[in-house]
């Protein structure tokens, strides 16, 4: 026996959350071929059926792209600091993909180690993630290459798995998730089924071996010419979490804020002295790969990538992580061969 919810009933349930004044977000079409996780105004616009892959990830709901850290006011030669209020609004993310939800426990490591990040922590508490297991994939998906898959439960509070065209199986994974659904499901004698996920695109073990010895390698140059050095890959990524801290205000006072930032920008590591440890795009591409597949695993035991493929889908020149990892994987298979000739 399992719990199930009919698709119209789910949409009605979303409507009732909205009616209660809850903040609900899910995949919404914003233009031709572009779907974003956005706060919902009505349940009708929520996209659930078919291959739905958003440009962005759900990280923005726990780590917003712009956030006040505190305010300051000038009082003569003194300064008054006003701590930013803690977020209070509960939010539900519905229709998240397993690769988005799985990013949350990965992000927990960095925001919790040493000194915990208060507002991140608070938003994690306030957020309930209702994930939809994947039945369809595209060429960019590579969750299965990273020991994840189309029904990865990490980071989700509820997992919905399609039983048939009318019904989802409801698997609650946390008490938070159960509270949302418990009075709204019916008994079902069938379980939801999904496929095996996208085919494996590269060998994670080979990648690990390669990174252990190839900090200096021509492979990093392979895509450097083509890469435009924008931040689309990092901002669309569910696990990228680099940020900047800046002041915004006038002569009376202002706010100190944190904004998303990206290691792909040339100025990211520029020192005040003018020295820059990463002057070339090849070094910046290498940094992104190392951070995700070696540094983070070494430090926290988790990969800083869930295989969602957003970095490639959103890349203006169709790069992102997968092509780089495939190139590395190909090198590892044929250790004698030179790296691809043409970037």
């Amino acid at each position, binding site marked *: 026996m399992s719990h199930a919810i009919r698709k119209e009933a789910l949409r009605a349930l979303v409507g009732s959350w909205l009616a209660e004044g809850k903040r609900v977000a899910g995949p919404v079409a914003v233009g031709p071929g572009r779907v974003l996780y956005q706060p919902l105004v009505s349940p009708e616009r929520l996209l659930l059926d078919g291959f739905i892959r958003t440009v962005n990830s759900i990280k923005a709901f726990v780590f917003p792209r712009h956030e006040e850290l505190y305010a300051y006011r000038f009082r003569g030669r003194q300064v008054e*600091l006003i701590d930013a209020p803690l977020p209070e609004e509960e939010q539900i993310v519905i229709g998240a993909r397993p690769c988005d939800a799985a990013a949350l*426990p990965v992000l927990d490591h960095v925001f919790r180690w*040493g000194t915990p*990040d208060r507002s991140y922590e608070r938003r994690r508490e306030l957020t309930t993630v209702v994930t939809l297991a994947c039945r369809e994939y595209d060429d960019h998906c590579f969750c299965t290459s990273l020991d994840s898959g189309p029904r990865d439960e990490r980071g989700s509070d509820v997992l919905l798995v399609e039983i048939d065209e009318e019904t989802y199986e409801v698997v609650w994974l946390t008490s938070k998730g159960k509270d949302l659904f418990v009075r709204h499901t019916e008994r079902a004698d069938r379980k939801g089924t999904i496929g095996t996920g996208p085919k494996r695109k590269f060998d994670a073990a080979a990648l690990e071996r390669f990174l252990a010895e190839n900090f200096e390698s021509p492979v990093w140059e392979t895509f450097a010419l083509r890469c435009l050095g924008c931040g689309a890959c990092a901002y669309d990524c569910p696990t990228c979490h680099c940020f900047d801290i800046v002041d915004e205000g006038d002569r009376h*006072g202002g706010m100190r804020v944190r904004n998303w930032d990206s290691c792909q920008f040339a100025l990211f590591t520029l020192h005040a002295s003018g020295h820059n440890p990463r002057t070339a795009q090849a070094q910046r591409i290498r940094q992104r790969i190392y951070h995700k597949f070696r540094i983070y695993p070494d430090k926290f035991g988790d990969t800083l990538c869930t295989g969602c493929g957003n970095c490639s889908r959103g890349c203006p020149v169709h790069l992102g992580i997968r092509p780089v990892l495939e190139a590395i994987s190909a090198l590892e298979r044929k250790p004698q061969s030179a790296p691809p000739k043409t970037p």
Partner: protein
Amino acid sequence: MTAPPVSADPATAPNLYLPDLMEVLEVQQHTADTKSVRLRFRNEIAAKRFSFRVGQFGIFSAFGSGEATFNICSSSTWKDYIEFCFRRTGMVTDALWEVDKDDTIGFRGPYGNGYPMEKWRRKHLIFLGGGIAMPPIRCAIWYALEHRDEYGEITIIYGARSTKDLVFADDLARWAQYDGVQVIRCVDPGGETPDWDGEVGFVPEVLKRADVRSDNSVALVVGPPIMIKLTMPLLTRMGLVDRDIYTSLESRMKCGVGKCGRCNCGPVYLCKEGPVFTLEQLKALPNDY
């Protein structure tokens, strides 16, 4: 996969980005573009709670302009105030340049690992600094002098581009007064004035010429990358082993606590696991700094 980290209670956890407010006690101008500032906590409880190790850094803010990272260049034995030194190079240091006595500056910290001063006890100390990198050796020198009987002979070689670019010149003069302390000041060729009584030459050359005690010694080298690169092999030739040669790496930082993703050098987050490294550790790091 390791177990997910335990979450903290956000209701009671402090806002880690919120700085302490500091009163400016004194501003000293060293060169045309370098100043040091002496600060005292405005909040007494914060002042009592505060302690640091020499070699650690702080994140200082000029409200309205932003934050910048500087070494705390005073000794940890001085209890009433802390000092930092900066060169005017950007938006934040432009604002700090305008700071005067009684003004308010923000401070977060201390961050980073600092120097292992206990480990250096009963050893001879060699300090090598270049230009604006004087502050990160100054704190350690004063610490050692305040515990004079715990350390052996002390050699200080400090170089700047010209006589006009020496920072903490008064400290250099005072250190020379101590027993068992050798202070060698040098300026780059062409940077000397007719009345210059120090050496002329780059720090590595001056080190080569100098009579420096190198048995049972540790060295701390801080300066521009090229100076560090040329000085370290000389120390090795003098017989110092890699784990007795130290440096403090510079990096662009934002959070100071290993979250913003900016300061890593290979696997090492400089803000948490640095900025102080031995040559032995440095050799294990990738060329990413």
